[in-house]
């Protein structure tokens, strides 16, 4: 018996819808096996991970809170991924955005100007953009691989954050904790849903999703971007520039991540902390792929991933699982999804191995 893939003539829509669902099911099965092997109660773990986020209004609102940065960053990254520009340093762009946004409230902790918040958001977005712009410059000017450069820039950003919080920006009355002063009210985002921590950054993320859809489907620029990345040679003949695809992808990705960073410090955190990002930049990569690099698909996958995040926090307490279990689940999910994608363009064929004639 021989199993092989045969290319389909046209992509299967059925497989396109089924792939993420099947991947999700497989990831659950694999995690159950793994948790059982580790001696944890798998039923309790799954209950915490997947159901508890829906059981109380507070938990559900926390899911929406987590969804804002994941969705915003993933939309930015997907623009690049569609054009084959791999910005995997959103984590660093988010951190730099958070730092830049924090500068104002750290320097003016008594500030009460109405311009403070908009200025913070703008500074965060611009700083994230500039940080990603370094990678675009290195790629277009020196041909340096953007995967490695964006990743290195993330590691640098984490150290810059540590330096600021242990040194010049440490709260003098903060009992030596590595965190900044608490921000004044003028530096905080308005709450969207009363009684929860969900702020208007969720709206930013939804607007970004709509803009990403318009860019992708209805604008010539989006098409140029796609071709510039997928077929640089064809693009050159048509007069589209590969360098432009790289610049636009990285700058938009950095802008989204920087804005997400600003919204974290001006939102649920209310100060600059070392844990300003709990891996949003990396999870957003998974969110972007899992959503099929499609703006509406990404909205769904961002929601699912936020459920897992909140569920993971619950599982830490109720099922004694370390938070790393969330990473394992996310990694498995992407592995299975990538394998499942094959069925969109291929069908499986079972053929009997030809016997050697005696």
């Amino acid at each position, binding site marked *: 018996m021989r199993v092989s893939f045969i290319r389909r003539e046209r992509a299967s829509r059925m497989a396109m819808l089924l792939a993420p669902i099947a991947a999700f099911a497989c990831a659950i099965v694999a995690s159950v096996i793994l948790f059982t092997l580790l001696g944890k109660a798998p039923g309790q773990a799954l209950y915490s991970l997947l159901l508890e986020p829906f059981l109380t209004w507070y938990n559900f609102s926390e899911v929406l809170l987590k969804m804002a940065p994941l969705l915003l960053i993933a939309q930015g990254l997907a623009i690049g991924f569609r054009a084959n520009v791999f910005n995997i340093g959103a984590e660093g762009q988010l951190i730099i955005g958070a730092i830049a946004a924090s500068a104002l409230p750290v320097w003016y902790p008594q500030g009460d100007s109405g311009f403070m918040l908009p200025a913070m958001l703008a500074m965060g977005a611009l700083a994230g953009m500039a940080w990603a712009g370094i990678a675009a410059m*290195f790629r277009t*000017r020196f041909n340096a691989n953007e995967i490695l450069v964006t990743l290195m*820039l993330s*590691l640098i950003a984490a150290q*810059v954050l540590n*330096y600021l919080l*242990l040194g010049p920006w440490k709260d003098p009355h903060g009992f030596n904790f590595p965190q900044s002063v608490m921000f004044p009210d003028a530096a905080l985002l308005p709450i969207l849903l009363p009684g929860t921590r969900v702020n208007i950054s969720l709206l930013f993320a939804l607007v970004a999703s709509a803009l990403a859809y318009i860019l992708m489907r209805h604008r010539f620029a989006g098409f140029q971007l796609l071709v510039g990345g997928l077929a640089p040679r064809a693009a050159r003949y048509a007069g589209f520039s590969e360098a432009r695809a790289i610049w636009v992808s990285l700058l938009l990705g950095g802008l989204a991540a920087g804005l997400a960073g600003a919204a974290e410090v001006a939102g649920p955190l209310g100060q600059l902390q070392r844990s300003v990002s709990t891996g949003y930049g990396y999870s957003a990569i998974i969110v972007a792929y899992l959503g099929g690099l499609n703006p509406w698909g990404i909205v769904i996958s961002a929601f699912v991933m936020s459920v897992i995040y909140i569920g993971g926090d619950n599982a830490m307490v109720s099922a004694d699982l370390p938070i*790393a279990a969330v990473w394992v689940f996310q990694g498995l999910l992407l592995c299975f999804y990538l*394998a499942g994608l094959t069925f969109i363009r291929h069908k499986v064929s079972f053929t009997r191995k030809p016997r050697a004639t005696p």
Partner: protein
Amino acid sequence: MNAVDFILAGMLAAATPMLLAALGEMVVERSGVLNLGLEGMMALGAALGFITTYTYQSHALGFLAAGLGGAGLSLLFALIVLGFVANQVAAGLAIGILGTGLSALFGKSFESLTISGLPKLALPLLSDLPVVGVLFVQDAVVWLTIALALAIWATMNHSKLGLIIRAVGENPHAARAIGFRVLPIRCAAIGFGGALAGIAGAYASTVYTPLWADGMIAGRGWIALALVVFGTWQTGRVVFGAFLFGALSLGELTTQAAGVNIPSQLLACVPYIVTILMLAVISSNRRRMRLNTIASLGQPFEK
């Protein structure tokens, strides 16, 4: 001990985790596959290596477990990119995240425990030399890594096996046409690279700094990936780059010891900044890059 002695004595050991991982990745890339999951495979190797060494008090078993763990994770990668013809960049990232998660999951209860490292072995005669003598007093793994680098160089450049691997990487369709089985060869290369990455992680957690901490690989897997580009896929240059980075990471410590007033967090950035600059210098020579880059790197192979 002065700064020069300190750097000379320690640079080989500091370079070893990056070198082992980079050598493995170089073979993988030469067969035409890009595995970005190096950081995760190293982390898994570091956790498994530490756990096994601590439990059985045997470094050899620790390295074995780490090698098997790294190879196992890399074979999952092989299944996804070779069996299911998936995007190698995305699959590598997925494996990286999975490996990092697994390492933290397994290593959780082994944090803040310690084990002893490995004894140093001095090469006779050479270690008696003035100044550079300290360079020749290293643990067994450092010596084995250097021997392995020589073996890989000889295999890649002067053996039939090396020729087959390179043929598969440069032009898989031609290689298949003359009767080589592309996917099994790539799969073997991936497994070899994964095993070396796992062992590299174990060296970091059981010998170089004998303890396990979440996040201890600290970007060394990514630096190893950059080293392969820096070395333009040539063994000798990869070794040179790794030693340079080993020296550099110690330069950080000596600067601090010398009382220079630079915050440690900013000094910790130096290897990352150098990686970026180094990539820029090497890659900006587009002609050399085009000559040396593996032609089918990252391309899925379908008959």
